[in-house]
């Protein structure tokens, strides 16, 4: 990290399908954050649109030609902004995307690669999956956007950190499940996973989840800021809108990486070779339980 960055997580309750209302909410929160000396405001996944869009995805999709796109970019005139939106790609397909905005420009956009389509989720019916995970240079250090389900695929985090990410901006729309002992069991599980990433990779994890109710989902809040040694510094309410503000200090990252240098000696080539073997047709057949077919 080049310098300390003061981050504010916005645990909000967007209005489903209403870009105008959500843009107004983003503007108000960004303005307040700028006045209070915050450097970066992080909103949850699909923060401009809400989650349970169904066939509304097309109606709320944004591209550089959209009448409201300049308003989105303008959010970041005084403070950096990470947010979630529906991207209409130049290819005409719709993506669940995260954006990092800096001084009125789109610095980085990430298309969610793993779209949960199981249990109560139906994302791949409405979105096209992204194909890449890339770390990027923010003004204060190297970061990666991780969108919800991607946190449940450790390879995404591994790939981002291998490209130098020091801060994981994890944005989600996780519904609460298991209301037990003062919190959602599901959100306890989420933070457990994120704290493990923070500790294993010695990275800052900024986690922005939403609250509110849409179409049978009660979103579980529990946003968090997790230090590079795995400590939960701040945790949001399980149901109500909340804001978490914390300074991410490069010194903490330095100390954590000295204490736990494990990721620094990662052998990427070894992993590439293992993955190449796993991806070979015969290995895939074996993994799928078709050992006999795979034998010549």
């Amino acid at each position, binding site marked *: 990290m080049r310098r300390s960055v003061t981050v504010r997580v916005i645990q909000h309750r967007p209005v489903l*399908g209403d870009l105008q209302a959500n843009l107004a909410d983003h503007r108000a929160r960004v303005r307040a954050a700028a006045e209070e000396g915050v450097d970066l405001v992080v909103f949850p996944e699909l923060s401009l649109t809400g989650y*349970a869009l169904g066939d*509304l995805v097309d109606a709320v999709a944004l591209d550089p030609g959209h009448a409201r796109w300049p308003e989105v970019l303008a959010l970041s005139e005084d403070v950096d902004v990470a947010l979630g939106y529906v991207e209409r790609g130049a290819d005409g397909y719709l993506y669940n995307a995260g954006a990092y905005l800096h001084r009125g420009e789109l610095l980085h956009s990430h298309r969610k690669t793993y779209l949960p389509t199981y249990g109560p989720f139906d994302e791949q019916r409405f979105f096209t999956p992204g194909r890449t995970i890339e770390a990027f240079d923010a003004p204060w250090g190297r970061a990666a956007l991780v969108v919800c389900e991607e946190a449940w695929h450790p390879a995404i985090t591994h790939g981002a950190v291998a490209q130098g990410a020091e801060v994981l901006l994890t944005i989600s729309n996780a519904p*609460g499940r298991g209301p*037990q002992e003062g919190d959602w069991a599901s959100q306890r599980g989420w933070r457990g996973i994120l704290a493990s990433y923070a500790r294993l990779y010695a990275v800052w994890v900024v986690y922005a989840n939403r609250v509110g109710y*849409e*179409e049978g989902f*009660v979103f579980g809040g529990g946003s968090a800021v997790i230090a590079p040694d795995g400590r939960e510094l701040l945790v949001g309410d399980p149901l109500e809108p909340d804001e978490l503000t914390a300074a991410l200090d490069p010194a903490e990252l330095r100390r954590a990486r000295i204490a736990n240098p494990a990721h620094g000696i990662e052998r990427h080539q070894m992993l590439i070779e293992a993955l190449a073997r796993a991806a070979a047709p015969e290995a895939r057949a074996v993994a799928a339980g078709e050992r006999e077919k795979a034998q010549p």
Partner: protein
Amino acid sequence: MTTAAGIDKVPRLDADLVVRALAIALSQTLDDAGRSGFVMGLSGGVDSALAAAIALRAAGPGAVHAFHLPAGTAITDSAEIAREMADHLGIDLKTIPVGPLVDGAPLATSEARGRGNFTSRIRMALLYDRAAALDALVLGTSNKSEIALGYTTLWGDMAADCWPLGDLYKTQVLDVARSIGLPAAVVERTPSAELWDGQTDEGELGFSYSQADLVLYAYLEGRRRPEEIAGSGIDADVVERVLDRVQRNAFKRRLPWIPKLTTRTVGHDFLHPRAWRGPA
């Protein structure tokens, strides 16, 4: 919380978190629908009592309109308990006897079940009438046990705009109701739809809710096979009868089907949220 043979018990939920979450859901549902309150049946039982308490939290006392809809001729303490409950919560309660309406209807059968189903539908018809007059939504009070077992009347007690208790087993409803301090008279009552004199849920089902919930939880959340559940020490006959009801009443848990004939069909690939705002 695992029994000797490895079937998990129905978990204890955090009552405060449950009530807060469901109040948020109800409050958002009102906003989405643009309505000003809830209409509901207040029977004197625990389901409607808990639903009323949550609706009150979501919408405020002036916005919950409760109706007691007695059908039977036997003297029960339901009316008194419904009144105690309404006073406890500070909500409005009116009584509309449905017995005369059912008695006056040219029904095809005088058999108890047919008459009971008609009674259940008359109750909901009255609630929808009141909801239109009061600019309100109809609050359903079905719980997860009833819905899973299909121990319900299609378009009767199931007819509602939302089911806030639909993911709580009956034993969890009882536990949450007790935890938030609802009157003992409500929590300790014998469950009954009171569609005919002497009817009780557990008498009619032939097993208790605590037995049923153990089986349902193992089957639904635990994804256990029926033989595993029966092998865990639960009466095999109860396991069979519970799961038979779940299977037999699958149709009650779905909206009527539409055979797909065109390229875009309601329910198949014309899918919008209930709260459809902004551009089309």
